[in-house]
């Protein structure tokens, strides 16, 4: 009997790329990738050819041309002599402002409503259900327009504040003016020496944080509660107040006042901004509330019962036992709601809020006729912001997930 010959090493043949299971997976992926790239290039090529047929080219030079239009809300200096690029940047900042403020209020409100919907108080729970279903089930655009209409139709015009016996008066010791063009708040004016005042304030806060940490450590080690509350308040208030008078009141408030057609000075929150932010925050908070509720319900009832048997009171159970565990479930879906809010802010045009969709994708697009370029820039911007938000929150999320050892 002949010993079997050593297995012959088959020489590589091109056909093996698809017939051999060792290679097939890879080669199919390569083929798919090539097809994808080809289709992509074909689309781009096709677009460019058709633009050429229409006599148009693709150029981003318009970003460096004079914009020629004014923007009412600007966080950086801008006037009609600035470039289209700067106008786009003003819009970007306005978008980010709405997104930040909106996400902040949506989170707080959502957390609050979500917890209250689980309340044992029948009335509170039902009211919260109505709140959630009301905001969640009506398109956000309608809420934006509705709140904007309420703000402009049912508030007095600046004219109503005029005269010896005005129809409308300012709130809070003549400091806040609510008008149909927006709400005017007093603005802080930072005079000389305000730097040292702020520094002393920040130092006091740092000291308080340190004391809190020390107290927590003491509590963990010895179980003794240190009286920190009143000490913290004194540490924050006393030096700051002392410095405030020592430095000769460096920070003062600038009150809005009526001059000509409108209020002057102070911080002007336009109705467009208020309506958009409020509507987005309310709408998104309804979704966040449901996420919070789901997160809390997902924590087993045994945890509550165990905590109660240790003698913890209900709000301590919520803060110390339930919420920290629920957060692990809450945070991932929270990201997509933040993203939704940011992207929904492009509905700003409905109330004339000049976000990036209104400047770059609205007026600039219209005045320059660069539809493709403007839209590409816009899409790129929203993509970057969304990716940034998700990566930041994912990082935060990782920091408190259970570490599997």
């Amino acid at each position: 009997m002949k010993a079997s010959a050593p297995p012959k090493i088959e020489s590589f043949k091109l056909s093996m790329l698809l017939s051999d299971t060792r290679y097939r997976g890879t080669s199919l992926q390569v083929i798919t990738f090539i097809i994808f790239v080809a289709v992509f290039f074909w689309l781009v090529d096709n677009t460019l050819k058709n633009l050429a047929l229409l006599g148009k080219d693709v150029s981003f030079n318009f970003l460096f041309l004079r914009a020629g239009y004014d923007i009412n809300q600007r966080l950086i200096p801008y006037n009609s002599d600035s470039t289209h690029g700067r106008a786009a940047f003003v819009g970007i900042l306005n978008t980010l402002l709405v997104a930040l403020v909106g996400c902040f209020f949506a989170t707080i409100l959502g957390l609050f409503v979500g917890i209250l919907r689980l309340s044992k108080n029948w009335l509170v729970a039902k009211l919260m259900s109505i709140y959630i279903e009301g905001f969640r089930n009506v398109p956000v655009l309608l809420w934006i327009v509705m709140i904007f209409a309420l703000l402009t139709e049912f508030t007095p015009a600046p004219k109503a504040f005029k005269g010896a016996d005005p129809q409308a008066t300012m709130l809070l010791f003549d400091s806040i003016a609510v008008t149909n063009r927006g709400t005017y708040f007093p603005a802080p004016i930072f005079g000389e020496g305000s730097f040292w005042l702020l520094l002393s304030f920040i130092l006091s806060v740092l000291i308080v944080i340190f004391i809190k940490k020390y107290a927590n450590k003491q509590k963990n080690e010895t179980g003794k509660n240190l009286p920190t509350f009143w000490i913290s308040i004194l540490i924050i208030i006393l030096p700051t107040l002392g410095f405030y008078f020592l430095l000769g009141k460096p920070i003062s408030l600038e009150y809005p006042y009526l001059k000509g057609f409108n209020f002057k000075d102070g911080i002007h929150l336009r109705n467009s901004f208020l309506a958009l932010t409020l509507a987005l925050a309310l709408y998104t908070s309804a979704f966040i509330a449901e996420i919070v509720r789901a997160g809390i319900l997902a924590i087993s009832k045994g945890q509550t019962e165990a905590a109660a048997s240790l003698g913890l009171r209900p709000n301590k159970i919520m803060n110390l036992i339930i919420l920290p565990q629920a957060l692990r479930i809450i945070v991932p879906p929270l990201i997509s709601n933040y993203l939704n809010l940011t992207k929904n802010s492009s509905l700003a045009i409905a109330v004339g809020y000049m976000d990036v969709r209104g400047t770059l994708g609205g007026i600039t697009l219209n005045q320059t006729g660069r539809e493709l370029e403007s839209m590409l820039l816009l899409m790129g911007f929203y993509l970057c912001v969304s990716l940034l938000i998700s990566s930041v929150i994912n990082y935060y999320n990782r920091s408190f997930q259970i570490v599997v050892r």
Partner: protein
Amino acid sequence: MFNAVFSQLILVLTLIKIFFNLKGEIMRKSLFMVLSSILLIVGGQAAFSGGHSVTLDDVKARGNLLCGVSTGAPGFATIDDSGKDVGFDVDYCRALAAAIFGDPMAVKFVGLTSAVRFTALAAGEVDILARNTTWTYSRDTDLKQTFLGVNYYDGQGFMVKKDLGVNSTLELDGATVCIQVGTTTELNLADYFKENGMSYEPVPTADNAESQQQYLAGACDTYTTDASALHGTRVNLENPDDHLVLPEIISKEPLGPLVRHGDDNWADIGRWVLNALIIAEEKGITQSNIDSWKDTKDAEIHRLLGTGDDDILAMVGLPKNAMYNAIKAGGNYGEIFENNLGATSGINIERGVNASWTKGGILYSPPFR
């Protein structure tokens, strides 16, 4: 285009083969075919063409004209109580439809906001834009459009409530101004206030209706747009007498219909329908007396109405009596103006510079020959 479709077909067939027929020999062939079809796609001239067709043929094949108009500018394009489109721009499109089809009703009106109008025209959603649009250099050149002429010489004005106590635009320093986004008025406004060292706060709105609502709610002190539109808006307000259109006109706004670049024949048709309406007024041809010109000795009228021997309208692909139908549809330029903007309409805009050159205006058409 055939190239692209063909190579895609090969691609799909090949993929099907790969997944259902995994045999070496065929594989090699398939791989070759996949690669070759990719080469075909990348290298081939696979552009779907977007602009070579002749607009007139498209319109005729479709059986109606797609005319882009305003979403609601009193006097220019609105919808009346019976649901019918009416207005100055609407009547121009009806005349154009009558010239092509002999039927002034063969038009579909597409309401466009000022912000989307050029995109809609460029994308072919409308054949012609008659939407009180200002003829400017950059719109003519950079936006790749062809303006067909001026059908209304307008200028930008301001409307205020009388109780504001303002009688001149120079008193508007610090005012809040309602303005439609994406219009030339937006740029004029910025320039005008800058030139005069005044400040203002713009309140951008999407269209005329929203501007009007904001203005009435007092969210802005003044509303600025073309003076003709202001007059049209004012008469439709609840108490027109409480509002005032300020006397200053801060810009030149020659309004006219426009089409896409690249189809000169289509542009010629639109331009000469407009000119025909202007010439008709000059010659005294009206909707009612148009049939009584058969024996006139004026050769231009015969050419215009197609009652002579020459058939010069064949040059642009229109029937011989096209202009007859156009004028018959809504009357001459003067009648259209009167019915939509003048005394008959209640808007009461004076003809002013929009009168024929024979009557002291600047409306002047090149000769029809």
